[in-house]
């Protein structure tokens, strides 16, 4: 019950309302407002390499709609995207491409590693010569999802977790700039 209260608590606009004559004044801190806005409008990059991409497409379609959380606009270009969902296996030939896409994304950016293959190499861990054993050998990852492939509900749970992470913590640029 407590967890439910915390979830609804952080979904309303962060701030305290001071009732004054003629309406109210909302007082808050800029970081809270900025984090709230960023988490509710994350635009994912279209990046799916193998089977997990089909579950990502299922999450985007009508039954497990992800646009109710703000992820509606899925951009094809990394310059306009906020979060990259690595859905599928990363192999040696694809790793420089992934790094280049990550570098082209503008700050602040987040990474979700979807599925067993992106987390640790998955079913292709032993006796393969060309699979990168986990996408975090290439780029830093924020949220990991287990499953082969994970259900659409698991992907939605990961997206909500990422939203909570953004609302409650500092982004990488805030840490780097010494806040």
């Amino acid at each position, binding site marked *: 019950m407590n967890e439910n209260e915390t979830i609804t608590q952080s979904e309303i606009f962060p701030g305290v309302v001071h009732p004054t004559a003629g309406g109210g004044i909302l007082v808050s801190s800029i970081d809270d407002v900025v984090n709230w806005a960023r988490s509710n409008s994350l635009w994912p990059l279209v990046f799916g390499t193998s089977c997990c991409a089909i579950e990502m497409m299922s999450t985007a379609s009508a039954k497990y709609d992800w646009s109710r959380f703000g992820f509606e606009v899925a951009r094809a270009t990394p310059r306009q995207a906020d979060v990259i969902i690595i859905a599928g296996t990363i192999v040696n030939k694809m790793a*420089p491409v992934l790094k280049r896409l990550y570098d082209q994304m503008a700050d602040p950016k987040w990474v979700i590693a979807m599925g067993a293959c992106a987390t640790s190499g998955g079913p292709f861990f032993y006796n393969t010569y060309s699979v990168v054993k986990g996408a975090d050998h290439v780029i830093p990852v924020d949220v990991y999802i287990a499953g082969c492939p994970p259900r659409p509900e698991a992907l939605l749970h990961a997206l909500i977790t990422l939203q909570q992470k953004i609302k409650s913590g500092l982004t990488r640029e805030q840490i780097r700039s010494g806040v």
Partner: protein
Amino acid sequence: MYRTTDILTNTPNTSLGEAGYMVINVGPQHPATHGVLHLVITLSGETIINVEPHLGYIHRSIEKMCESLTYRQFIYTTSRMDYLSSHINNHCCALSVEKGLQIEIPDRAKYIRIILDELTRLASHQLWWGAMAMDIGAITPFFYAFREREMINDIMEETCGARLTMNYMVPGGVMYDLHPNFQKKVKEFIAFFKSKINEYDEILTGNIIFQNRMKGVGIISKEDAISYGCTGPTARGSGVSCDVRKLYPYEIYSSIEFDEIINNGCDSFARYEVRMQEMKQSLKIIEQLIDNIPEGDFQAKTKTVLKLPKGEFYTRVETARGEFGVYIVSEGGTTPYRIKFRSPGFSNLSALNHMAKGNKIGDLVAIMGSIDLVIPDIDR
């Protein structure tokens, strides 16, 4: 960080780096390439001169890995190769092991396998229809296709336990018996989907813009289709009769009534029509089988450790994309000595250059959609 093969100053091994030609990259990260396919296109204005596919961005060395997996374990890797027809791929592997060990499977298992195969073919064609329409520019069919696909995924999840990569086929039959709700749900789905197929035709097939984008585009003649090794709807749209279910029937396909759809149009619209008719034929097959599933065992008794005798075995099935073949060379041990997967997409893709020459760059997307590529199937 840049590799020298990425910076193209002229197309390798050809003399096309002359003035007036432009070389551009499509992919590997691109919404329309259905996976990670890197195409290097040489253009003169907007007309395509040469298309060269660069593969290997999802080469997971499955054939090497299978040399260290036993005959029961290697079946899961084929689910991940062509993940849209995962049941059919698993079926082929189970058939190849049964052929080597000469196991006879019970009738109930045969009926269950064929019904699940045809449901998978329907689901794959639905996703193809939605994704191809989205590539051409019509976004709405994507949601319609996924709505129906979710119904099939629910049926699969109840019986097999997973939505996309279900390892339900084992050498000897199927892993568990059907769920009690299976027959009822499948019958409801058939009744629902029959009206939806007409809706699909209304939305897309009769649309004048769609027809103009697909007719006359991506022409491949019958002799070229055979020479390039195309199978499946890609070849049947050019008049080649190559349905493995009719030519080399396996399980009980020889006693089921269905038509092989052949269209002599040779262009993208013909391939589109072949797949739409195949969806109707799949419904017909399921209708014939769903009421007559015989009682009995769902799995034949097999030894715990399977060892194929020394020799080589080739088995083929018809997936949603074409002929999928498994070639096992065995030395008598518990793991295969060499496995080769003959994937349909590999040969279909080699015909892309031939089909796309002379067309505009916007037609390339229509051609790739009509061949129905799944890149992990090509790279293995």
